Each structure stands twice: as C-alpha cells, then as structure tokens.
C-alpha cells in the first residue's frame, strides 16, 4: 500500500471516528469507498472531501421507543450543561461591572452595560425556562412522554418572541464585549472579527437548532404512531 493510500485510509478512519452519531453511517459509507478507488490520489482527494461530514453535527436518528427514552434521558441531563454555560456568562459579566466603574470612554461604558444587561436578561429568561422544564419532569412523566413534551417546549420557545429575544441578548453580549475593550471596535481587529464570527455562529446554530428540534419531533411522532 502506498503512502498516499495510507494517508487516505487514515483520514477516512478519523472521519468515521469523529462523525456525530447522526452522521456515522454516512461517514462509514464515504470512508468505505476509499478502498474501492483505484487511483491513490483520487482516493486521497475523496478522503479529504469526506472530512466535511465532521462539521455536520447531528444526533442519532430516532427509530425506536428505546431511542425516544434515551433521548428523553439526555434532554433531562442537558439542563446542567446549559446552566453552567449561562452561569459562566453571568459571572463573566460581573467582571464587566468592575470594568464599568473604571471605564474611560462612552464606548467602554456602553459595552460593559450591554454585557451586564444582556447577561442578567439571559439568566432571567433561562431560569424561567428551567422552571417550565422541571414542571414537565416532576410529575413522574415517562421518559418517552417527557421527550415529546420537552422537544415541543423547546421548539415553541425557539420560535417565540422570548426565544428570539434570548438570541438577540446573546448577540448583544458579544457586541458588548467588543465595545468594552479599551479602544472599542478598532482596538484589535482579530478580537472583533472573532466575536463577529461568534455572532454569526450563534445565529446559525439557533436556526439549525429550530429545524433540528422539529425534525426530532417528527421522528418521535413517527415512532409513537407505529406503536399505536
């Protein structure tokens, strides 16, 4: 086996191992082809192209009742991860409160203010959502039912004006960080570009999550319909 072929096979292996659960079968499909491509360089090009699968992060498809229950369990566990992320942003915002006292320009003041207000607002919205979520869990609902209800709650929230305002607050939080640095937007173009990219990414993930939740609801419904 030539070196080029070996590299192609290695890349294909990495793609299969790194693919998200929802893309694993596809990753295996694309990786398997490498062994059947006669030209080594073509095989390498194919393997390099297949790395795109790594950027497509999706959950495993829901095909059975066990999958639904499993998803319900994961959804209930996700609370702690989300809470840590928002708690971190709130703590971070306190640093900007200290910075606000020392701010020398209006740009910095606005930036710090944005970070603080956005973090407090997000914390409030997210806390209210947790309470709703805990309400779903507390009345001994089965994991399958919980999964369906929680996905529905998420979809409704993401599409609601409150959900959109949370998204907007998250962007304001990033904008505030850029403004709050000494010299504002002009201070460090790399820093500014990094956070601008963050805003684009947040928007992209937000839109993607809305579509993903609807797809998961459809999959759960299909499984539940089959059982009935």
């Amino acid at each position, binding site marked *: 086996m030539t070196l080029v072929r070996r590299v192609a096979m290695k890349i294909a292996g990495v793609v299969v191992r790194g693919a998200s659960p929802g893309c694993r079968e596809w990753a295996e*499909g694309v990786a398997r082809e490498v062994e059947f491509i006669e030209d080594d360089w073509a095989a390498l*090009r*194919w393997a390099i192209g*297949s790395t795109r699968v790594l950027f497509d992060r999706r959950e495993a498809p829901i095909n059975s009742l066990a999958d639904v229950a499993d998803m319900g369990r994961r959804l209930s566990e996700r609370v702690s991860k989300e809470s840590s992320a928002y708690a971190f942003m709130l703590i971070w915002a306190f640093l900007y409160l200290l910075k606000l006292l020392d701010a020398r320009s209006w740009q910095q003041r606005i930036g710090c203010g944005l970070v603080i207000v956005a973090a407090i607002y997000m914390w409030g919205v997210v806390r209210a959502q947790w309470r709703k979520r805990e309400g779903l869990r507390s009345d001994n609902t089965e994991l399958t039912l919980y999964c369906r209800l929680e996905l529905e709650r998420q979809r409704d929230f993401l599409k609601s004006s409150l959900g959109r305002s949370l998204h907007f607050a998250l962007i304001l939080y990033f904008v505030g960080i850029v403004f709050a640095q000494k010299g504002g937007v002009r201070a460090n173009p790399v820093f500014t570009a990094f956070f601008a990219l963050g805003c684009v990414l947040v928007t992209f993930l937000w839109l993607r999550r809305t579509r993903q939740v609807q797809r998961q609801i459809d999959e759960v419904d299909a499984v539940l319909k089959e059982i009935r």
Partner: protein
Amino acid sequence: MKMRRSLQTTRVLAEFLECETAWRYGYDISRNTGLRSGTLYPILMRLAEHGLLETSWETAEAGRPPRHLYRLTLDGLRYAREQVGASSVRAVGAPAFGGVTG
C-alpha cells in the same frame, strides 16, 4: 415538498434516473456527476432525510468490506423526474449567452 433546489442536486437526481431502480455506489455517482465527496454526501443525506433516497449496505464479499448503496425511493423517482424535467425545460428555454437582443 421542501427541498433546496440546486444545480448539483439536479445533477445527482439525473444520475439516479440513468438507471432508475439500480443501487448505486457513492464513488460512481461522484465520478459521473463530477461532484466531490464533500459536496455529494450532504446532498445524499438531504435526499434521504426527505424520504427521497434509501440506503443499504452491500453484502460483504470475502476480503472486501461492504459498501454503502443508494437508490431513489418511489417518491424520490417522482421528484427527480419533476426536477430534472423542469431544469431541462429551463435550459432549453433560456437563451444562449444571456439572450442579448437587438
């Protein structure tokens, strides 16, 4: 049916229509359409998500790993005929060189 229309998707659909009921390999589709793996697989995944494409694993032969196979479903065939037909109508109807008129 909500499915993003693109030239690449139409090329893939046209390729499937070449041999409507046959199972196809990913690399063969890529070679015949000129699409790279990074472009082809997202299209195939999208088609499968919409129930237009079915997948299967080849039965393994001795010493060779099984390959992933793809085929259009009945809905997929219907959709492909519509899309490929519409795109060829558009291509025929479109004037050459942007249709510069006197």
